[in-house]
């Protein structure tokens, strides 16, 4: 691990914004530059809440603790500021935007990165888009389709990976990217993430998943187990294998 972690979470408590239900009860986590981490946990453990909170979802609210990203306090930043600072959330349920093509959507997102005073070079954009699609083995016509409109589960997730490839994040949060995917689609998505990580080994990846199967394709350096809003076990890849054979039961009962 490098000296300063890219993401440092200390004693994080969080709740649903409109309700008094605490979901995270003191999470501690450090991610070093270029590392691949996985957080595994049963349904309702709070792992997706953590991912959304890190990306700035307005439906969740931190009540205690701190999150530092590249040394800066993260929690008071707007979602767009976090994105511009290099955080990317691959959604579990990507939103459909009928009437806006993927290309137009990405162009708008990249224009935001240029700021108000600079104009995105459309030829460069087109080249970059084709290049990224080729890397991910996608048909160029994919970019002409309206964002997620009528997409299969696999297509939605591939679209997330394409966005990730175009936006080149420093910290990628993969929220249950494997949910609803068959094994072929899962492999395609995992291959994409692997390629992006090979290309940019400094990119940090946090995988949120219920199942071990994604981790057969995306090899994490570290695996954490989250149960009832806390991380109860951290270790190397062997933790995932333990979970695969024994399940979450012992963690649920042996909780702190």
């Amino acid at each position, binding site marked *: 691990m490098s000296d300063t972690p890219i993401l440092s979470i200390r004693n994080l408590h969080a709740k649903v914004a409109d309700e008094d239900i605490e979901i995270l009860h003191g999470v501690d986590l450090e991610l070093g530059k270029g590392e691949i981490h996985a957080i595994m946990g049963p349904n309702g453990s709070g792992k997706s809440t953590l991912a959304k909170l890190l990306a700035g979802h307005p439906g969740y609210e931190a009540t205690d603790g701190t999150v530092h990203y590249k040394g800066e306090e993260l929690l008071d930043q707007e979602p767009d500021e976090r*994105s511009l600072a290099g955080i990317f959330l691959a959604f579990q349920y990507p939103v459909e935007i*009928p009437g806006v093509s993927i290309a137009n959507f990405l162009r*708008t997102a990249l224009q935001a*990165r240029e700021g108000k005073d600079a104009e995105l070079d459309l030829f460069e954009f087109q080249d970059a888009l084709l290049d990224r699609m080729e890397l991910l083995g996608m048909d160029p016509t994919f970019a002409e389709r309206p964002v997620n409109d009528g997409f299969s589960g696999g297509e939605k997730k591939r679209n997330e990976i394409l966005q990730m490839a175009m936006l080149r994040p420093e910290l990628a949060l993969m929220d249950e990217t494997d949910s609803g995917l068959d094994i072929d689609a899962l492999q395609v998505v995992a291959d994409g993430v692997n390629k992006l990580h090979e290309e940019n080994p400094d990119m940090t990846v946090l995988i949120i998943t219920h199942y071990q199967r994604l981790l057969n394709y995306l090899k994490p350096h570290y695996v954490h187990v989250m149960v009832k809003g806390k991380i109860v076990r951290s270790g190397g890849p062997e933790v995932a294998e333990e979970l695969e054979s024994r399940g979450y039961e012992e963690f649920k009962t042996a909780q702190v």
Partner: protein
Amino acid sequence: MEGVTEHLNSDAVQALASGEPQWLQNRRMDAWASYERTPMPTTRLEEWRYTNLDRKLKLDTLEPLGWIERSFSKETAPDRLVAEMEADHESSGHLVELDGSVAHVDLDPALASKGVVFMSLRTAVTEHPELLEEYLATSALPAERGKFQALNAALWTDGILLYVPRGVQLEHPIRVSRWLSESGKALFSRTLIVAEEGSQVSYVDEILSDDLDVQSLVSSAVEVFAKDNAQVQYVSLQRMGRGPFHLSQQRTIAGKDSTLDTLNVNMGATTARLDLNAQLVGSGANSDMLGLCFGEGDQHFDHNTSQDHVAPHAYSDLLYKGALDGKARSVFRGIIKVHKGAQQTDAYQTNRNLLLSETARADSLPNLEIEADDVRCSHGATVGQLDQDHLFYLMSRGMSREVAERLVVIGFLGEVLSKLPLGGVVAKLSRAIEEKLHG
């Protein structure tokens, strides 16, 4: 005699009719009589429940715009009109109407030699009386259909005739640009489109104006006939400034195996009312009916549509969408009417609204009236707010809230445009929506 005023009266009709052929004089006078006997619609009528004419339309003060010999040149025409005309792609013909009088017409000579007729309605009175006698304010929009249909049939000053003979297909759209500059006036214009058997034509009407200090009424009566196997696309773009009351009354009559599609866009005017009746009279007829409105400030849009299935095996599909900001308000009232004997009808109706502010409002009243037993019909309506999850998704990609909202609106309205295969119109409207979003 409600609605008879200092300026809107039988003298005004007489003045217009003098010198016209007898059949037309009679038609005007009959229409006026019908106007006089028809009560002014009030909010007690379901069809006018949400548009209070007492408050929205100051009929008493309006002076009808008379016909004036006008010419058109780009040098003297309003900048905005010229800019919009220049933004249009290639056309088969172009017509310009200024304050209710046609000032310019051109038509591809190759089409003219095939018998296509495209001219001002006033010219058509002498050059093609047989067409007007048969179709003008007769079977589609006769005076008896309602108070304002009667008023227009009595007081129209000019308008457009497009006639496409059997089997003739127009590669490019016919384009009509209309401009209103005068405050405190009433403008009555008619459009008559007759597409004979197996012909094909796209027609794009755009009406523009400056902002007006004092209300003007623009009354547009539109009659479209698609004969057997004809294909017609009718597009109306209402992008006037603030001030006017736009009243568009349209009837489309689709023959056997014809396609008669419409798009109605309302972005301008202070009050815009659309009455669209799509009648499917031939078996196998098809009508796609698209509409969108985008309102802000105190704009008020009222859409009143009917899908009238008279013949069996016909298909109609309506999609109207509205985005509303500020205190803007929209009403959608749509009915699918399947007559006895119209078996194997496929008819669908969807109205979706997106509210961009707490004070905007949309009312949606879809309705079905089915007298046949072997039909497929559905209707649906939604009124939604800007979705937090949508905004979060876009913002998590780095877009500011403002840009994200804009993209959601463009996407929302763009779905309607994506169903219309008319390149130039889609580009123009996308730009218009963006302009309005930027304020």
